[in-house]
């Protein structure tokens, strides 16, 4: 990444059964896409707490993608439906606080949709690149006393 050009950092929260496998399939098919994404795998989109997304923004992510199984395909029957409810309220809340909804995107990508994964992730990267860095949030990090991630987890064992 060059110093002058802004390269957004995207964190993607994916369900194990559909979208993670879809991203694998894109790999098997050698489908090239932009390298800005860091994937965090969870069993199900239903297991994604909005706190994860808040934390990702707080850490400096410029954009977030949440992706899981298509409605009706959830490995756990209804996890994605519950997740959809959650995002139905969480997304407008962030928007209301002045966070551009393009920075937080949702998709259904099945294990067979390697192509859709590539399209989606490229779409997210392009959209966020157009928006520019999420300075608003990132500025908060530097205001006031600095509490780094490490210090915040000081409760760890050992």
């Amino acid at each position: 990444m060059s110093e002058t050009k802004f390269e957004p950092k995207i964190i993607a929260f994916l369900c194990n059964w559909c979208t993670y496998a879809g991203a694998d399939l894109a790999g098997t098919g050698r489908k090239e896409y932009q390298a800005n994404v860091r994937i965090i795998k969870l069993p199900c989109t239903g297991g994604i707490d909005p706190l994860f997304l808040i934390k990702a923004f707080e850490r400096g992510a410029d954009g977030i993608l949440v992706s899981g199984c298509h409605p009706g395909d959830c490995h756990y029957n209804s996890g994605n439906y519950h997740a959809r409810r959650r995002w139905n309220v969480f997304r407008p809340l962030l928007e209301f606080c002045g966070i551009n909804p393009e920075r937080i995107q949702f998709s259904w990508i099945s294990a067979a949709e390697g192509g859709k994964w590539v399209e989606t992730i490229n779409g997210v990267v392009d959209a966020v690149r157009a928006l520019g860095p999420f300075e608003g949030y990132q500025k908060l990090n530097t205001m006031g006393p600095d509490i780094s991630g490490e210090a915040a987890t000081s409760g760890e064992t050992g």
Partner: protein
Amino acid sequence: MGKKIGVFVCHCGTNISATVDVEKVAEEAKKNNPGVAYTTTYKYMCSDPGQKLLRDKIKEEGLDGVVVAACSPKMHEHTFRNAAVKTGLNPYHVEISNLREQCSWVHPDKPTGTEKSIDLVRMMTEKTRKDRSLTPIKVPVTKRALVIGGGIAGIQAALDIADGGHEVIMVEREASIGGHMAQLSETFPTLDCSQCIMTPKMVELAQHDNIKLYTWSEIEAVDGYIGNFDVKIRKKARSVDLDLCTGCSSCWQVCPCKKIKSEFDMGLGNRTAIYIPFPQAIPSKPVIDRENCILFKDARKKNIPPNDSKVCRKCIDACPIAPVKAIDYSQEDEIVTEKVGAIIVATGFKELDDTSMYGEYGGGKYKDVITGLQFERLASASGPTEGKIERPSDGKEPEIVVFIQCVGSRDPAKGCSYCSKTCCMYTAKHTMLYKHKVHDGHAFVFYIDIRCAGKDYEEFSQRAIEEEGATYLRGRVSRIYKKGDKLVVLGADTLTGSVVEIEADMVVLASAMKAQDDAEKFAQKLSIQYNKDKFFSEMHPKLKPVESSSAAILLAGTCQGPKDIPETVAQAGAAASKVLALLSADELEREPVVAKVDRLPPPVFSTCIGCFYCQRVCPYGAIEEEDIKARDGSVIKTVARVNEGLCQGCGLCAATCRSKSVELAGFNDEQVYAEINSVEFN
């Protein structure tokens, strides 16, 4: 002291190393990360020498956490975790960083790929730091099976399991086992008599030492989980003591209520109020139909115990058993509990009864418009006409019969879009049975398509057309109306593009196979899924066709979707074999990726506040309520607890919990936090 983590970066031949500088990735993993005690790269980590390297280094370096940066965890997570186990390291301290499918193969630019790989390895290293040891969950197995439904599917499954040496409980809600197959006259494509092949199986089941049969009984509730179900069975009051009764028939011969429509004969014949559904019934012992028996009617009207009614006591007087009669008017429903390890659901189908749905076919008001099963009873030698084809209205032998296929099937306008699969074949069979009995008669068949895919099926339907002379017309029937004593059938022949009008003596609707009326309620009792048509859903449409969505609950026969007898029997056998495999072990081992609600020392006990959102969202009913009690037995608070046997590890509960009192093992809060926190942002 922190963990000692080893990072093993795989070249995967050149699959990874061509576009990722693996050496640099290994080097960076160590840099600024005191927790990483050892890093290396290797050509093929998954090869035997690669695995040996992993094992050796775990031992040599004393590693208690491992990151393998290689292909997708879906490929070799299992391989590397197993390798770790051999060294004594708990497998859940091994994590995979996906450098191949999600990096080297998709980012051809080497610096870019390398940079991303460094990030990915760091994320996994941080997650590994928070990994905890997990032990597989062991679940004991009750070595008995429950089969719900005593049709051909249930009978086959029960016999297979019982022959395999395990006990089987069979529950059938009707008074006899046999199901729909016992009602059929002949079966396609061989035209052998259905009862001739069915009855021996019924007898075998009744006499099997390993099978306990509950007829006239229904499932009240199912609790528990794989290997450990508690089943409550409602034994409906039969009014007849099965142990005392010999089935001598004295009682039903004297019963004065003779005009009750026989369910077994699809309403075409009559039965008495104390009755056996059909002569070959198993058990061959009667039941009193309390709705229609005049004694019970009288007791209800006067609001007295049935024993006090004096209106009619003919059956009990006729009962030759002494000193205690086999008939007992005061019998009540009884609930029994059985423990089983696995359940086969074989609850079958219901034939569409078209009273309201098909107004254009008379909506049930024409006696001579009958359903497929009714035709089976007409054609059956044991049926109400003893096998003579006589139309219900006046007993006349019909000279022209019109068969209409796809009634209630493939008809989205009526809300049923699926194909019932068996009707093409049974309609062809009906035309043959009809022609065999009424030689001068003429059979017309209206069809959409003829779907006879099956061994010898196509030949069979061609025989109906070519040898037996049934006239097949491709088109739908728009209306049936009565004209004199004829039924005028208005239809289209789409192959000639003309309108067809047939004056028929009788019309047979190839009625659809529908899910049982109470299928939805039943599925909820068992926590299994069903589709839009209320047929129970299989776990996977291809690879797990007999498993339901709940572990150790299997599906057999038409409760899962329309199918014919051979298919039903095959599926029942498959379900039985799954049960036998399950019951072959004393204990089951399950992956420990399950949720857990925290428990803390007093006075907190648990941060769970007992709002039970987790319970409401759990797709498996795995969240239970637990009372935390003081020494004196008083309840301090009621909190949630996860039943590990039921939990499938989706994490819905954890994400729903506002106080984060529930965590999912393997994906706990600290692990996810570490992953998010370790992404390098500039």
